[in-house]
Every structure is written in C-alpha cells, then in structure tokens.
C-alpha cells in the first residue's frame, strides 16, 4: 500500500507517502464521538440504539479497512509503531475504562451499555493507532534518509 517517494527538488526534504491510515482512523474516531454525543444527549433516559449502532458499525468497518491497509504497508518503522502503540493503548484503555466506569456507575445497562462498550473499544484502539502511525511514518527508514 506504500507509494514510492516522489522526486523532490534538490535540498528539499520529502517524506515517503503512506496509505491514509491516520486519516481513516480519525474518521472512525469521529463516528464514535458522534455516536457517543448522540447517546449522551438522551441521558438519563434510555437512548434509541439505531443510530449509535449504525455509527459504531461504520466506525468498525473503517477500523477493519485500516488494519488491512496497515498490514500491507511497507517501509514503516514498525519498532516505533509498536513501542508507541502499546503505551498509548495502555493509556487509552485506562481512559476508556474510566468512562465505562462512570456510565456503569450511572446505571447504564443492557443494549446501551453494549453499544457504549463497543464505541469505547473503537475509541481505545483508534487513538493509539493515530498516534503510533503518525510517529512511525516520520521514523521510517526512507523518510529518515531524506
């Protein structure tokens, strides 16, 4: 999925082009945030789940597409990707856990809790993905050599 670096004028540094993993992860994050806002806007009532489920599924599809694109990426600094990714994941799993705790504490149960949990999982995966990919793309061997 990686595209060869385009020719750059002498003295101008260019970066290797990668698939838009960070952009797609951000789009997936936007869907989750919109779904979260939609559900929160009904609190303390039980929200209708059609729209949030649709948004969560669309976000999940984008994440799956992203994972496939990422797996096909060549030239990425994978060591940095995993180094940053695991710490960021730990941090955002804790953050997502805090949010889940607050909702469970406020008696969110059943379907809404399942949808909310799915959204939090997507949130906790997408943000570390954006951070680690952004770091790794600028640490890539070809980008570094430029």
């Amino acid at each position, binding site marked *: 999925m990686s595209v060869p670096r385009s020719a750059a004028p002498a003295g101008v540094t260019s970066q290797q082009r990668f698939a838009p993993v*960070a952009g797609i992860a951000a789009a997936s*994050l936007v869907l989750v*945030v*919109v779904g979260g*806002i939609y559900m*929160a*806007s009904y609190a303390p009532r039980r929200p209708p789940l059609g729209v949030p489920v649709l948004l969560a599924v669309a976000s999940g599809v984008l994440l799956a597409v992203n994972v496939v694109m990422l797996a096909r990426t060549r030239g990425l600094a994978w060591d940095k990707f995993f180094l940053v990714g695991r710490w960021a994941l730990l941090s955002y799993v804790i953050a997502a856990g805090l949010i889940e705790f607050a909702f469970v504490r406020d008696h969110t149960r059943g379907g809404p809790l399942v949808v909310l949990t799915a959204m939090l999982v997507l949130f906790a995966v997408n943000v570390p993905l954006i*951070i680690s990919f952004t770091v790794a793309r*600028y640490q890539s061997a070809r980008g570094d050599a430029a």
Partner: protein
Amino acid sequence: MTDTRVDSSSTELEAGAEAGAEAGAVVPPRPVIQIVPLKGLPIVAVILGFLVASIGFNWQWGLDFNHVAGGGLWTGIDLFVGLVVGPILGRLSIPARAEFSARFMPKMVLVMPTLVAMTLASGFQLALDLGNLKASSPNHAWLMVSFVVVGIMAVIALGILEPANIAVLFEMRKPRPNGEVIGKLMKRFIYTAGVTGLMQVATLVIMTRVASQ
C-alpha cells in the same frame, strides 16, 4: 520511552548552531528529551484516583473541584498556548522552536489528557446530578451544544494535536533530527491549538450561560 541526549541536528539546526558559533554566541547543549515525564505519572495517578472516587461516591465538592479546576486550567492553557505561545513559537527559528518544544511538549503529554479527563468525567456526572441533562431542563440545549464543541475539540486534540506532539518529540530524539519534519509538525500543532483555543471561547460562553440559569 527513556532519556536520550540528542547530540546532533538537521541541516537547519546545524546551520543555526554554526551561525551562532561564528558570531561568538554560546550554543546551549541540546536538551535531554523524555517523551513521557515519568516523575509526573504518580501525580496523574493521584488526580485520576481522586476523580474516580468523586464519581464513585457522587462527592459533590470533589466533582465541583475536578470540573472547575480541570476546566479552568484546560481552557486557560488552551487559550494561552493557542493564541499567545503558538504565534510567538511560529516566528522563532527552528533551533529555538526545537529547544522550547523539547522542554514544553513532554509536560503537555501528561498535563492535557489529565485535565481533559478531570473536566469531562466530572462535568457529565455533575450535569446528571443537577438534572441539566433532562430534556425539560433549560440547560439541556446548551449542554448539547457543549457536547458538540467538546467532541470537535476531542477529535482535533486526539487525532491531530497529540500525535503531532509525540511525533515531534520522537523526531528530536533522533541523532540527526529533520528540521523540516519538526517545522511541519509544529505548524500543525500551532494551528490546531489555535482552533481549540477559539472553541474554548465558545465553551466559556456556554458554561457561564449554564451556570447562570
């Protein structure tokens, strides 16, 4: 994520240092860059523990403290960085920007997510407790607008600001940091900090409106 002394620099950074040396100026040593300041983690843990306890026990003062202190600092820092520090930083030379960022950004990696967590988690709990989220509440519409504003800020902060911040720190840890990459990422950081700063003005209007109804 350990300390690394960065001992060399990009062409632009070197050029800046050489120009300084030629002019007889003392070139300061490159700063030690720690991406996550480990000494700050216990403080973050205590704050988050306090937040969880406040929510868990529905502790009114704790919720108020987390929301007011966290929100005030978040808004203040966002406005100050976006509208005061950012434009100044944008006019500095790349070596000066790099040196400032090496000391400033690791602190932001810990400070901002902690403040955001304090503000949002306690704010939602307060809104529930005070009945402001009920559709019949006069504050309901204002809070929905604030959710949207916070949602936009969250996507900007999590999707652009924080990744750029951490990528700059990694770049500066390289034996030969790429000045162009640092400049590009810093520009992204500065512009988005400005946008979130302006959105904080909207938050101030909404929150003062909610508090006065």
